[in-house]
């Protein structure tokens, strides 16, 4: 009797395992469709960037041309520099503000939600028109590329605020702060020792979005006459098609590299608020 039940149980468990591991056909189909949707344009870009090459030129000729262009390096580094400045200013402004609102002024959260939506509804051109009198008044500042960082802080506000807001909602902020206080820590000390390490993923996520905005912002930089990476991309795109497409692919790679950096940095900071396992 026991043998019979064992013998019949084994194939049954195999069948169960097979059934579990079998992926339905429509799942695969959906995956393939999504892959085509995303990969086809990239394939086309790569394909096009390898065409139009004259005899004697290397297969990566257009890429070589981009890298050899001093404007590529200067505009790219200018954008990176502005991005990092924007991230620094945004974090210094926003982290303590959002922390304090969550901790002591939660009633202001809806107000903050509203304020941080404004950059979505106010177009950059309107912002520049609004800033024009100040730019005229402080012309010495307007000629420095750092001015872009202060303007981009406004553009990055909704993204950074939401990332930080989500990060702070994910931890029991009040209890953690009170626990640290009871152990003798001051509020600034608690912010640096306890809260920031637990907001690492949110800070990295918000910072990356900020970098992405800065690296792609064209209107304001163009109006203020700074030759940033998007301006360079536009210029190349309108003059040399092959080179412009090669530059587009380089931009893709740079964004992917940044996403990978986010993943690697965020992986170490995934110490989310204590999820208990049962004893």
């Amino acid at each position, binding site marked *: 009797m026991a043998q019979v039940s064992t013998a019949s149980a084994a194939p049954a468990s195999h069948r169960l395992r097979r059934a579990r591991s079998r992926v339905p056909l429509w799942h695969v189909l959906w995956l393939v469709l999504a892959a085509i949707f995303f990969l086809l344009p990239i394939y086309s870009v790569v394909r096009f960037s390898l065409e139009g090459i004259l005899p004697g030129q290397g297969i990566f000729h257009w890429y070589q041309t981009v890298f050899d262009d001093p404007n590529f390096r200067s505009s790219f580094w200018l954008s990176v520099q502005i991005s990092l400045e924007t991230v620094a200013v945004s974090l210094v402004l926003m982290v303590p503000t959002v922390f304090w609102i969550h901790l002591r002024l939660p009633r202001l959260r809806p107000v903050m939600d509203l304020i941080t939506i404004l950059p979505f509804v106010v177009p950059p051109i309107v912002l520049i028109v609004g800033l024009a009198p100040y730019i005229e008044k402080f012309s010495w500042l307007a000629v420095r590329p750092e001015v872009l960082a202060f303007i981009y802080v406004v553009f990055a506000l909704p993204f950074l605020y939401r990332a930080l807001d989500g990060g702070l909602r994910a*931890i*029991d902020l009040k*209890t*953690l702060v*009170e*626990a*640290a*206080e*009871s*152990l*003798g*820590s*001051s509020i600034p*000390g608690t912010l640096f*020792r*306890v809260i920031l*390490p*637990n907001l690492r993923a949110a800070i990295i996520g918000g910072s990356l979005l900020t970098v992405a905005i800065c690296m792609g912002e064209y209107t304001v930089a163009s109006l203020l006459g700074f030759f940033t990476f998007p301006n360079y991309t536009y210029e190349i795109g309108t003059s040399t098609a092959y080179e412009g497409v090669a530059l587009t692919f380089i931009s893709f790679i740079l964004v992917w590299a940044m996403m990978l950096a986010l993943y690697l940095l965020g992986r170490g*900071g995934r*110490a*989310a*608020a*204590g*999820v*208990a*396992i*049962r*004893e």
Partner: protein
Amino acid sequence: MSTVELRGLRRTFGSVVALDRLDLDVHSGEFVSLLGPSGCGKTTALRIIAGFDWPDSGEVVVDGHDVLGLPANKRNMGMVFQAYSLFPNMTAQQNVEFGLRIRKQNHEARARRARELLDLVGLASAMSRYPRQMSGGQQQRVALARSLAIEPKVLLLDEPLSALDAKVRVQLREEVRRIQLELGITTLYVTHDQEEALSISDRVAVMSAGRLEQLGTPAQIYNGPRTSFVANFVGTMNKLEGVVISSEDRVVRCGPLTVTVPDPSFRHSVGETVELYVRPEDVRLELLSNGASPRAGSFEGRVTSLTFLGPVTRVGLQTDLGPLLSDVSSAVALNLAADTPVSVGLETDALRSLVSSTTTPDSSSSDSSPTALLS
């Protein structure tokens, strides 16, 4: 070891009075539980002592000094919270060392102290675990070790076990008491669980509506409740109505029964209607054979319900005095069934006449069964 005195603490939130002139003295090395239903002000009192909240008026005196002017991080009070409060980015050891790092102790001294305390709470083997790798009970043990690491003047525990399952709760409350006795630290423990408070405290302060209803040892609270609130909140009480027939001899007639109230503070005039209280374990039952009459001093009742509670069974009765509850040995209860006629007697020594409270316990926040109040 420190003493804590709360003097006339009053705290309001808008129109809600959370604390209403609360006075409480906690002696050095004593374990006092603040027991009461949700919203009675016990956590507010604890948070004011810790420095996370401030009273409208009153004083918090620790070792003879009013500490209300000090911020929370200067009061040197260890606190364990109801919510899991370990720092998620730190291991158990780093959590325990946190307060010592703030005090700039060197690495060796910190590590040694963390090892000692994690050993004390039985988690020496979990020093390098992160909070997410620990169960709720383990996290609260580490939180206890962390709060003890700074050698606090007073240990404050705000319902630290309420998020844990029943078995772990019992085990951990015994550990909390063992550690408190071992270190002799003055401890204030907030709970709404009467069993928890009665089992581990030197004294229990029962609170209701921001006021202290009664302060006493667990035995005093259980056996000698001074108000109807305490009687009903701590354990289960039967309430009987009677008429005073002799003021001097404290004799009361309750339906078919004439009883003498043992309480010497009983002051009621003849003809006055009074409420008497008796615990279910002081209500005796005897099976009545068909047609038999109850013996003298007893009265007849019929079983309406049986609730198995382990060693005892709670028997619901319908009697001439109204519905009553009686706790009998579960072995005896095997002979009972619904509608069984029984003879019911009261331990008259256990009868109490209590001062009415302005509040009644919220049955949802007490451990009492819905049938605890028989009014």
